[in-house]
């Protein structure tokens, strides 16, 4: 167990493992996502209230879902960084923070596009949109702090502290924004909380969510590999990678 844990900390070992997993993640992710999206956009039944415009949930919900869980993953990795000083954990945080920010932005953008036909306006200070906006701020903070500190190790650890502080705050922020929202605009039209969503709608949604998770896994591995190569560029094994196959 401990040996495995130790190995997991080795960037070189991870680099090789990632190479083995990445094609699978990419192919499965693409298949699931495409299947889900095609099914959802072309074959799923229309919504009886919103017509076709609801179909944006096949992008909106998965990206919002993933955006939030990426932050939680980052927080777990941050804990590992601070407690066990594992290099891979901070490589992970650094590699996925921009991905999380992009997905949060995508969720906000699709939410706002969805808002136009449903609410008649591009932006509404709805509780969920607002907390996603704050999540985006948190992501920006993490990225900004990470790039402001030049020393790789301190940068990683400072970011880890910030991510953990953020993750303690996320439930508080979410709760207070919901409370604030009910205080200011009672009874908004809730979109996704329809328990009677037919299976033809939620199955493709589930497919997209799963597919996007796998694609995220692929992207995370890819970005981590890049980051590892940059950090370890002076080591023998990275130099060996650069040599043409025959020469080695």
């Amino acid at each position: 167990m401990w040996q495995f844990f130790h190995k997991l900390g080795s960037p070189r070992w991870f680099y090789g493992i990632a190479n083995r997993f990445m094609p699978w993640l990419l192919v499965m992710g693409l298949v699931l996502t495409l299947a889900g999206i095609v099914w959802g956009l072309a074959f799923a039944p229309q919504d009886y209230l919103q017509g076709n415009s609801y179909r944006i949930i096949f992008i909106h919900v998965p990206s919002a879902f993933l955006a939030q869980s990426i932050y939680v993953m980052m927080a777990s990795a941050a804990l590992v960084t601070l407690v066990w000083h594992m290099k891979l954990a901070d490589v992970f945080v650094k590699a996925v923070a921009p991905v999380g920010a992009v997905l949060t932005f995508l969720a906000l953008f699709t939410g706002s596009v969805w808002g136009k036909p449903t609410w008649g306006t591009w932006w509404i200070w709805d509780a969920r949109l607002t907390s996603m906006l704050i999540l985006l701020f948190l992501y920006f903070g993490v990225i900004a702090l990470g790039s402001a500190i030049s020393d790789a190790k301190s940068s990683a650890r400072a970011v880890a502290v910030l991510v953990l502080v953020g993750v303690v705050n996320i439930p508080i922020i979410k709760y207070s924004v919901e409370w604030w929202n009910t205080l200011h605009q009672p009874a908004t039209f809730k979109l996704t909380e329809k328990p009677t969503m037919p299976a033809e709608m939620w199955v493709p949604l589930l497919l997209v969510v799963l597919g996007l998770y796998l694609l995220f896994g692929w992207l995370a591995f890819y970005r981590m590999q890049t980051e590892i190569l940059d950090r370890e560029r002076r080591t023998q094994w990275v130099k060996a990678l650069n040599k043409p196959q025959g020469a080695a």
Partner: protein
Amino acid sequence: MNVKVRPAITLAERTVSVPSAMIAVLRRDLQVSFRQSQDIFNPLLFFVMVVALFPLGVSPEVEFLRQAGSGILWVAALLATLLALDHLYRHDFDDGTLEQMMLQPQPLFLLVLAKTLAHWLVTGLPLVLLAPVLGVMVHLDGNSIGILCLTLLIGTPVLSLIGSIGAALTLGVRAGGILLSLLVIPLYIPVLIFGTGTVMAAAEGAPVGAYLALMGAFLALALTLAPFASAAALKISLSSS
């Protein structure tokens, strides 16, 4: 430099008690602040000016001000706190005092707590004391002003405590002031929401006990967690300098 006060060299068993070390930190920081009184007055002036911008920039009508007043005051107080935060560790970092504090045998998070308290006493507390005057200027009624001051009294220490984490994290960064704001503002949102929400509830005649209790919970949470995070952040920042 041959002086007789030098005691014998032994492994030190004695130690200064934690409370008295904390008091020493508090006392030194207050002394420094009072000698540099701009550090106290500038955030206050900023607070007043930001509040004055709203009637000028939005509307001086009594109705609007009465409705938005608590929010304006809270936002202005939040910005003023933010402005003063960068000083919390910056001077100490530059002149080496921070290093010496980290090398004190007492637990660092308690010394950090003392520093944050000193900072709140000179930047947060004056805002609370000035708030009634500004409350009158934005036409809040007496009851609302009372509640507003109470929420500020509970809320501004939370702002200082959370802010101290950000200040510690951005210590080694050049032009850390703006970065500090970016990091800290999202974390301030719950305090802001409940601060203004409490006053609005009071204006509508609703009971505010539960809201105040929640803000008290924020304060308790910040008091217990923030000093640890700040201490960890300070160690990281000093380690890279």
